[in-house]
């Protein structure tokens, strides 16, 4: 059995201007100990996708279709009272911006043991012991648990957030831009730590980021999202060496090649579409330099082009239309 299977997930937001299809038919799966990277521009739906799996959507958001199977049990249709038992124990989240995610007037150790007491039903002493262990695991001396967040540096706050996510031995951890606000050196330390823990505990890990450059060394698979859909999904080698979707190609070309010649990368002209008024056809067509007449009328569906490699483009791989 797979650890996680997401099938045709739809998450819509009801806004005053109409329905916004933030996640629109997303499917992927995750094995034990596997790391999946989700990448895309702001507003492509990657965070909403993560929040849907943890069932932490704001009140305007709603899962309107699809299934989220965690070890075969569907989370999407589960009532909130049941979810509360699963959340943090089975699925936990490392939130973006550790600087603001910790409670400033509560000791860091107490914030971690709070989750343990709530879910493990053990004694306070046991929770305290576990908090010490988990802090040591993320390389913070256990004694620092009695400090307040402002006494921590940025990197240490992010470690504390990771410790909190790991407090109840979850099966899946979702990292929503866990290193975005950090310096390169601290980022590398955090990524090392996450990789070590993932392998040790055979945890599933979903890394959400807009920085494609860190995925090549941290993940097994990559999902590229655009306008609420996964446009390409494959192994790291598929994505970087057998790139099929024009959007993925343009996204990779946004990063400077420090081994090659000095040239400002190309970037992608235009901006992502207005999610409230999506045109028919392929959402990327207005920015795509390979578009043909059919791209503006016919929406491409995901096609298998390799063993684990899928792309949603009429002209994937640069050849003629795949039918």
């Amino acid at each position, binding site marked *: 059995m797979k650890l996680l299977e997401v099938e045709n997930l739809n998450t819509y937001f009801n806004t005053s201007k109409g329905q916004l299809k933030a996640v629109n038919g997303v499917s992927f799966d995750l094995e034990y100990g596997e790391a999946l990277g989700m990448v895309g521009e702001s507003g492509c739906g990657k965070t909403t996708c993560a929040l849907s799996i943890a069932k932490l959507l704001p009140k305007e958001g709603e899962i309107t279709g699809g299934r989220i199977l965690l070890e075969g049990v569907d989370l999407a249709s589960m009532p909130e009272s049941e979810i509360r038992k699963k959340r943090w124990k089975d699925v936990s989240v490392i939130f973006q911006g550790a600087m603001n995610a910790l409670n400033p007037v509560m000791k860091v150790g107490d914030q971690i043991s709070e989750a343990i007491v709530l879910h493990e039903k053990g004694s306070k002493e046991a929770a305290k012991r576990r908090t010490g262990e988990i802090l040591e695991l993320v390389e913070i001396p256990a004694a620092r648990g009695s400090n307040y967040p402002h006494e921590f540096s940025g990197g240490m706050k992010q470690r504390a957030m990771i410790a909190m996510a790991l407090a109840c031995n979850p099966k899946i951890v979702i990292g929503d831009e866990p290193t975005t606000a950090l310096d390169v050196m601290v980022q590398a330390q955090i990524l090392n730590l996450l990789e070590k823990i993932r392998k040790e505990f055979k945890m599933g890990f979903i890394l959400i980021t807009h920085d*494609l450059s860190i995925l090549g060394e941290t993940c097994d698979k990559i999902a590229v999202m655009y306008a609420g859909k996964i446009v390409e999904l494959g192994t790291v080698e598929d994505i970087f060496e057998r790139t099929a979707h024009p959007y993925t190609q343009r996204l990779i070309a*946004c990063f400077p090649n420090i081994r090659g010649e000095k040239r*400002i990368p190309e970037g992608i002209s235009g901006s992502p579409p207005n999610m409230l008024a999506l045109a028919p056809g392929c959402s990327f067509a207005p920015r795509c330099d390979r578009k043909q007449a059919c791209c503006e009328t016919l929406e491409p569906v995901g096609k298998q082009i390799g063993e684990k490699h899928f792309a949603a483009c009429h002209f994937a791989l640069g050849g003629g239309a795949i039918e």
Partner: protein
Amino acid sequence: MSNENGSKDNIVRIEGLKVYYDLKESFSSSLISQKKRRVKAVDDLSLSIGAGEILSLVGESGSGKTTTGKAILQLTKVTEGEIFFREERIDPKNKVFMKAFRQKAQMIFQDPYQALNPRDFVLDIIAEPLDVNQLASSAKEREDRVILALEQAGLSPGRDYLYRYPHELSGGQRQRIVIAGAMIMNPDFIVADEPISMLDASIRTGILRLMMQIREDRELAYLFITHDLSLAWLISDRIAILYLGSLLELGKADDIMKRGLHPYTKALTKIMPMPGVNRGRERITLPGEIPSATEEIVGCKFRGRCEKAIAICAEQRPALAEVSAGHFVACHLCK
């Protein structure tokens, strides 16, 4: 150390710049402690920027890069040291000089979501420097200059943007507004503080190209502040590596990136993430984090995290020494 940048004229020169901040202490502890604790944000920094040059200041958070930029523009109080603009000493008390200086030296801030007044029209935001300096004689001229600045910043037709509020614009468009506001005074020197770090990768390159285009058109000099070494290499003529308020290495972009000598520079270049299949690449990180700037460190500031540190590193602070033409390193082991 003048003209180490290789150009004929210096636009900005800094000599022994120190910016210290006093730490707030409680009344009781101020009675007991003899010495005031201070944060040494910038600690004895000397460098110069040539006309039309791009110099990148690279360092981790807390290394003093933003403070250096602000000190040059007199946006923070300088504790010690001198700063020269076109070889004329900047004296904040000299009102006439400061008025001209403020027009010729501008800053682009990091966060375009906070740098624009949410209740002003784009027109009024960009025209503010004109209003302050009374440079537009009529409403028509004011508007025309704003439209020109908008179009130079890649927002055309500029007329369409005049009566929009910042919240109606995307992150990339906002940063272009910030740039238009900096360019309207025709500056010679710009401090750009992480101008693209808040933006998506796909939009970043557009802003970079714009900044490079403006530089070509006007012979503008940039002090580019970033924590991203690959970005610094891409756009700048020279790179300065900053650590706890002091320079560790300074040289041409390729010298730093490909032939970096200081152990810190080497660690930074090795750790840079690169797009591509790098599965199993071992990330060799430095132990610990950048120490607090309140600590008094005797000797080399980097020695606590340096695996090559020897006895002399703890006794004597290494001075910045030239190892090859235009390439300076502050390390006892790189001579």
